[in-house]
Structure formats: structure tokens, C-alpha cells
């Protein structure tokens, strides 16, 4: 949760120059012809117990990334928010014949480290190793999910850690605003509770951890991805040996959320804050719905890329922020939320909000130029290739398709579908999905000076104020 800045990052990111460039005396050379890019060939298997396996021989260096993705996470927390996070932490505390230190040393000897992370819908156990150790690494993953020690003696320490990291998160403006925003959008559904509280952490006992593992883990709700250079024969043998007799387990419970579409404003005081943290958005179509590609292109053009209108306006033209961005966050079952987030210089808060609503209206009423759209499509196609060119990136894309239940050709058709989007599609998608009248707005800042100007914004008239 902590975001520690270790460098001045500076990103000069910039934006399409809408302003004139009429004085150019020398023009840059033109790009050549694009070269073909094909996704690497993968091999899909399914063990008799239901475990899905995807092998992707790939890469130029002798490394292998293995990821076991379990279809469970904070969605299964129940009232004990943070339970899935504690389960993930406990899995590192020893498995099979090894305690926590033994497990850590073994992973390091293989050239990697165990990474275990619980998300809203998925828990991922990841190990990135030297290729020669790929088959051994399969055994480590099997031990971690099938024979975890779950020592009660370590739980108080891990609970104290979670309490500390949660307290730190609650001192970070983006986390505070994000917690309030998620709760307004998703209510008491687990998606609406992003941070554990001292109460929920205190309520978690070792029995909860053990029951979670017993009930939520199983072959039929897991998928193992292996990407990189590896010896397929020994890896397949290992996964049959180590996972073949894993019980299928129970299927995940459906728990669809209902997102808020009521125009809502919540203002949170952070006295003396130098900047205001702004989050604005609403539930939208998920990846499995037909309108998703059109919406995601509209989002990229608006605030999802370095060329975006938001950055161009609020940063490169006004200088009010270091950056402004919008994104679509998908969940299981085709739920998704579109969110705009930015931190703006405190005195510029209300003017920045006015600009944001103005730009939203422009997106919804006027199709972009063919040139602006083409640049965004090129950018998205290029970043898709870059993303699919790393072991971790490729696994992330495959796991995303699996969670969303997308067809097998979704990735291979991605670029073609991307370029099929027209300027009119962008306008129509924005008009259909991005209605400011249905959006939730959270502003965290120095309310003593900012509140009157924010509430006076015409775009917020009639909103429910919290």
C-alpha cells in the first residue's frame, strides 16, 4: 500500500499539441512501415481435477515466471475486511517442510522471491526463477497453496503489520479519497471496502485463515501460468505430480455488486493540504460487453494516455497539477468502474473541476478528429505490444481474459478491434457511459477555503452532498 518515492521521476509526459506549429522550418522524417507482431504461441491444458494450465515458451534469457492465480480474494472477506490479505501474508510463513526463512531462502536460490498478493477477485502466488529451476518452482507453488503451515504464532505479528500499513494508507490523500470513493460507488459490497479497520483486523482469528484456505482454494478455481524459457517435459511432469491430486474445491460464490449512479458529492477535510485530491466517476460496461472497446478508446483519448486531453489541459496548459488521468477498473462478472483521479494545487481546485466537466461535455458532444483518434489508437496498439512482450505482462493479460471470461481470440483480435473504433463511436460511448449526472465526486482538501467554490459549481447543482 505504501508508495515510497525513490527518485525524482519527473515525467515529462506531455500531450498532443493542439496549438499551432506553423513556424516549423524542418519537419521530422516520417515513420517507416510497421512490422508484424504476433503473440507467442501458448499451450493450454486442463488437469482432470479442473486445474487450468497455460504454458508459454517465450523470451531470450533463461528465466521463467510462474503464477498460480486463485479465483478468490477480498470478495470472500465477508465482514472481516482484510482477511484475504492476511491469508496471502500467512502463505509466506512456511509450507510443507519449510518455515518462512526456509521458503525465502529456497526461492532466492532459484533466482527469485515469492510474491503473494490478494486482489478483489484473484489471489496470485508468483515466483520468477532461473529457467533451470522451473520444474522445482512448480513444487514450491504447490506446497504454498496445498500445504501451507499457517502458524498461529505468526498471526499477531502479521495483524500488527496490516494495522500499520492500513494506518499509513489512511494518511495518504489518494488512499483516503479512494476509500471514500469506492464505498460511495459500491456500498458495503467488498469492492466498496478498500482498507481494513482496526476492528476488522482484530476480529480475524487463525480459524478464519484456515477456513478461508480450506474453502476458497482448490484446483477447479485455480490457473497456473508458466511463461519464459523452460523444459516443458519436466514442468508438465512436475505439475502432474504436484497438482494432479489436488481436490477441485468448491466453485466461487457469485457476489455481483450494484454500483451507485446517483450524482453524489463528498467533501473530506484535510486542513492545510497543499493540494486537493479529486476522484470522479461511475460504474461502466465491463470488458465482456460489446461497448467496452469503444469506451476504452474514449477513455484513453480523454485521460488514459500521455496524449490525453486531461493532461494537455490541466498540466501542460494550466500548470495546475503534476498529472491527471482516468482509467477503467474491471472486476469479475463484467462489473467495472471508470475513475478520473488527480491532485491539483489547492487554490485551483474549483477551476480544475470546472475544466474537467467542460472536457467531459466536449467528449460527449463532439467526435474527435480522425488525427487525434489515430494517434490514440497507435499509442494503444504500441503499448499492447510492449505489454505482451514481457513474461509478467503476458501472464497478466491472460489472467485478465480468464477472469473476464473473454473469448480465446480476444487478445489476437485486440489490435483489429482497436482500429475499428470511429470518431463517432468515441462520442457515442462517452455519451452512453460517461454521464456526469450519474457520477460520484470525492474531493479531499482544505475545505475551509475550498468548500464554497466547489459547491457553487453549476455542474454540481442538484447533487446529493455528503
Amino acid at each position, binding site marked *: 500500500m505504501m508508495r515510497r518515492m*525513490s527518485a525524482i521521476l519527473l515525467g515529462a509526459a506531455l500531450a498532443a499539441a493542439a496549438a499551432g506549429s506553423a513556424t516549423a522550418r524542418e*519537419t521530422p522524417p516520417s515513420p517507416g512501415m510497421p512490422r508484424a507482431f504476433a503473440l507467442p504461441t501458448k499451450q493450454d491444458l486442463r488437469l482432470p481435477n479442473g486445474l487450468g494450465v497455460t504454458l508459454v515458451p517465450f523470451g*531470450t534469457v533463461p528465466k521463467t515466471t510462474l503464477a498460480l492465480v486463485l479465483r478468490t480474494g477480498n470478495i470472500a472477506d465477508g465482514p472481516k475486511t482484510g482477511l484475504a490479505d492476511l491469508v496471502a501474508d500467512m502463505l509466506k510463513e512456511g509450507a510443507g517442510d519449510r518455515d518462512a526463512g526456509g521458503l525465502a531462502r529456497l526461492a*532466492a536460490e532459484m*533466482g527469485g522471491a515469492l510474491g503473494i498478493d490478494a486482489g478483489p477477485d484473484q489471489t496470485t502466488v508468483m515466483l520468477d526463477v532461473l529457467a533451470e529451476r522451473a520444474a522445482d518452482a512448480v513444487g514450491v507453488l504447490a506446497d504454498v497453496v496445498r500445504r501451507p503451515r499457517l502458524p498461529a504464532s505468526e498471526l499477531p505479528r502479521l495483524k500488527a503489520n496490516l494495522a500499520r500499513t492500513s494506518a499509513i494508507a489512511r494518511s495518504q490523500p489518494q488512499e483516503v479519497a479512494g476509500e471514500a470513493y469506492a464505498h460511495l460507488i459500491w456500498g458495503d459490497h467488498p469492492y466498496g471496502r478498500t482498507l481494513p479497520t482496526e476492528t476488522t483486523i482484530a476480529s480475524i482469528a487463525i480459524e478464519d485463515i484456515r477456513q478461508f484456505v480450506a474453502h476458497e482454494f482448490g484446483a477447479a478455481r485455480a490457473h497456473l501460468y508458466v511463461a519464459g*524459457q523452460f523444459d516443458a517435459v519436466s514442468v508438465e511432469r512436475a505439475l502432474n505430480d504436484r497438482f494432479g491430486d489436488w481436490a477441485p474445491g468448491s466453485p466461487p460464490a457469485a457476489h455481483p455488486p450494484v454500483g451507485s449512479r446517483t450524482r453524489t458529492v463528498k467533501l473530506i477535510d484535510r486542513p492545510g493540504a497543499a493540494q486537493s485530491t479529486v476522484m470522479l466517476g461511475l460504474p461502466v460496461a465491463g470488458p465482456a460487453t460489446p461497448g467496452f472497446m469503444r469506451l476504452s478508446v474514449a477513455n484513453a483519448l480523454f485521460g488514459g494516455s500521455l496524449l490525453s486531453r486531461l493532461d494537455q489541459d490541466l498540466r501542460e496548459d494550466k500548470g495546475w497539477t503534476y498529472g491527471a488521468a482516468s482509467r477503467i477498473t474491471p472486476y469479475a462478472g463484467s462489473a467495472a468502474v471508470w475513475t478520473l483521479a488527480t491532485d491539483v494545487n489547492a487554490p485551483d481546485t474549483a477551476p480544475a473541476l470546472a475544466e474537467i466537466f467542460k472536457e467531459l461535455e466536449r467528449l460527449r458532444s463532439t467526435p474527435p478528429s480522425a488525427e487525434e483518434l489515430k494517434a490514440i489508437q497507435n499509442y494503444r496498439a504500441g503499448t499492447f505490444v510492449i505489454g505482451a512482450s514481457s513474461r509478467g505482462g503476458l501472464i497478466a493479460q491472460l489472467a485478465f481474459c480468464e477472469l473476464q471470461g473473454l473469448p480465446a481470440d480476444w487478445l489476437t483480435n485486440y489490435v483489429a478491434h482497436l482500429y475499428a473504433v470511429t470518431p463517432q463511436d468515441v462520442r457515442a460511448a462517452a455519451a452512453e457511459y460517461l454521464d456526469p449526472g450519474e457520477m460520484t465526486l470525492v474531493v479531499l482538501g482544505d475545505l475551509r477555503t475550498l468548500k464554497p467554490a466547489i459547491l457553487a459549481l453549476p455542474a454540481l447543482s442538484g447533487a446529493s452532498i455528503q
Partner: protein
Amino acid sequence: MRMFRSIAGTLAAVVAGCAAAPVPSAPPAAVRAATPAQINVPVEYYRLPNGLRVVLSRDPSVPTVTIAMYYHIGWRIEPRDRTGFAHLFEHLMFQETTNLAKGEADKIVSGNGGVANGSTHFDYTNYFQVVPSHVVEPVLWVEAERMRGLALTPESLQNQKDVVKNEVRVNVINQPYGSFPWLDLPEHANVNWYNAHNFYGDFKDIDAATLADVRAFYDTYYVPANAALVVAGDFDSAATRASIARYFAPLPARPEPPRPDVSEPPQLKQRSVVLTDPLAPRPALAIGYHVPERNTPAWYAFGLLDEILLQGDDSRLWQRLVTERGYSDSVEGGINLSGNMFDYDGPALWSAFLIHDPGVADAQILRDVDEVISHLQTELVSPAELERALTKIRSALYDVAGSPTRFGLVELLASFALYDDDPARINRLEAEFRKVTPELLRRTAQQYLVPTNRTCLSLRGARMAAAPKP
């Protein structure tokens, strides 16, 4: 928020993830030989008559090319009355040039399917992009255009001052632990101004910057002899050499800028400093030690001590402070927090830091640290533990070589070209680490990991319990 915000971090962090497409190298059976395979990155290196260093590293496995221009100027030697200027200047390099309006350079990169960014560090400022292979030519032109024709307007200077101040607000001023310890530690552990000033910049200095300052800095430091251009990936070697000659050779030769004395006098006694962070809900502790001069045997040994002590949850400090004592969920750090052990050119610190609960005294944590270190000063590291440290380095180097963005790769090639005139060093790194003996490890720990060489920072929150509640 940005796709690639930074390439800083320890070597391991730099290279997290990533390999490229299907060109199998040695089969696993061969890899398992007694002498492990090492990375073998292709390196073509030459200098143009005007002094520009050029490094080409071809790898056709993915149809993209990484193009990076590194200037041998970072925040360390920025003007004394202009703290933060090297970083502000980095932003200005994305503004107007003679032949490009504001924003057009990025449009050429991103609008053709690439990603672009820049970053500022102790001893370099870089501008880098990953683009589809067919966009190499225009991007080389853009880098040459930036080097020869910055044409900043007063409006863009003001705009980027505002943007930079907002960057400092979002990363430091409005953030708990915002400067801890990456800005705080150099400031307190060093005494030479060059190593100890506020690298992000005091607002009064940022506000005071003028177009004349910009011109003087540009003319002094942004010259061919002070830069390295790295092109890595799937490009045509002959055509790329020709393009580089076409766009960069016409730039006039200018003198390599002088480097001031950045040396740090030996530290003779431990420094302890208490900092207050009104936004922090928990106390924190950081320690920093001056490290041996780069490229010396002791420096390689220190790199291994870092792996043994701090990198990964198998490391000794992690096992003691996190797993056994439970002071925190993690302990982090390394050599040169603002980058890694290979990308600086001057004095550097090795540091470790953690955030802990109020009930734990710093003295108690330091006793554990001293015990762990003391063991390294008296006992020899076992062959198995040394091999594990070397394996971690080898694994990270493979990811440097195999990453499809190649950010870690171009960083090492550029650093070794600028600082050592020898980018092919990258292929000898592992062998240098392998020369380190358990005896040298112990001697290095005895010499450098001593309290007199240490600075301790204790961070205290002003309101330990209070955080804004919804």
C-alpha cells in the same frame, strides 16, 4: 499514473519482470553446468567526432526499439543558487524546440505507438522512449533536435515551474514520509553541498529560474561530448548508424563540462538526526553508510553485502527485523536509493529503512542491526550464502538483458559509457562479483559497516494517532 514513472530503484527493482519473444538460448541442461551461463549483451560502441558517445545493442526478438539519451548532468552538480534546477530542466526539454511546437515531440513518439519519459538522478538526466521499430528514424531526429535547438518560451518556463511545484506537492509536501529517506538521508549524511542539498528544489529557487539560467545550463551541459545515445532492440544496424551520423554529426563540438570536486570527506563519528513529519502516523528509522569507491574490489564486495543483508526476504536484516522481531512488514534500501549501484558517479550511500510502531525504540532496532552486522564482521559468509547472493545478481542481470522495455539495459550501457567509456563492462559484471571472497566480504564489513561511518534518521510524526478521517 504514468505507465513508466521511473526506472529508479535497486537493480532488482529496476528489472522486475520481463523477457522477450521466442529465441531459445541454451537449453536448461546446459545452463546447469558448473560455471553458470552469464549474460552476453551485444555492444557496439563508438564516438562521433563531436564527442557524442553511441551505444548500439541489437536484439531482434520483439519489434520495438528503445532509444535513450543520457546526459552526464544530474542534480548533484546543479547551480548552487538553483536547487532543483537539473530536474526543472528535464521538464523543459519536452517543451518547444526550433522546429517543434510544445508537445509535438511526444506526439511523434506516443502518436506512433511508443512511450516516452525522462528522469533526473544524481549524475545523469535521461530521455527515453520505446517505439515500434518503424519509428526509429523520427525519434532519432527528435533527440538531435532537442540537443541542438531548445527554444523555450517564457510561458512554457512558467508552466513547467508550476508543474514541477505540483510534482513536489504530490510526492513530498502532501505525502507522509514524502522525503524519507531518499531526500533526507543524503542531506544529513553528507557535508559537501553537492551531495547534500535539496535535489527536488526549494520553491524560491524554482521560482527564481530565468531563461538566461536555462540557456547557460543548456549550453554547458547539453552538449554532444557530455551525452550518450543508446539504441537497443530490433533495428537495422547500418541504417541506424547512418541516421545517427546524419542527425548528430552536424552538431558542433563543444568542450566537455568541468566537474567540480564532489568528494565527501571521511566521516569520523556517527550522526543521529530526529526529523518531524506532521503527516506520518507511525515513526520510522533509516540508517545510511558511505560506500567504497565505485569499481573497486571493496565496492563489488559491498554490492554482495547488500544482497546478503537487505535484498529479498531471505536477507539477514529482513529475517531479523521483519520475520523474527516483527518491527515492520518490510525493510528496504540499497546502494543509491535514487537509482542503483551502477548508475552514479561520485560518493554514494547504502541505506536501510523501515516504518515501525511507537512502542519500539530506535535503539532496540539498532541493537539488532548491529548484531546482524557484527556477525558479518567476525564470521565468514558460507559458500552457500555467497552463491545465493550471486544467484540473485545473475537472475537480475538476465532480466536487465531480457526486458522488452530494455530500460535497465540502456541505463547500464549509458552509465558505463558516460562514466567509464566502456559500456561492454556490462558483460563482465558477474565475473567481477564472482572474484569477491568471503574474506573480502568480512574485511569490507569491518571497514565500512561501522557506527562512525553511519547516519541515523529517526522520523517522528507530529500527531502520531491522528489522520484525516472521512
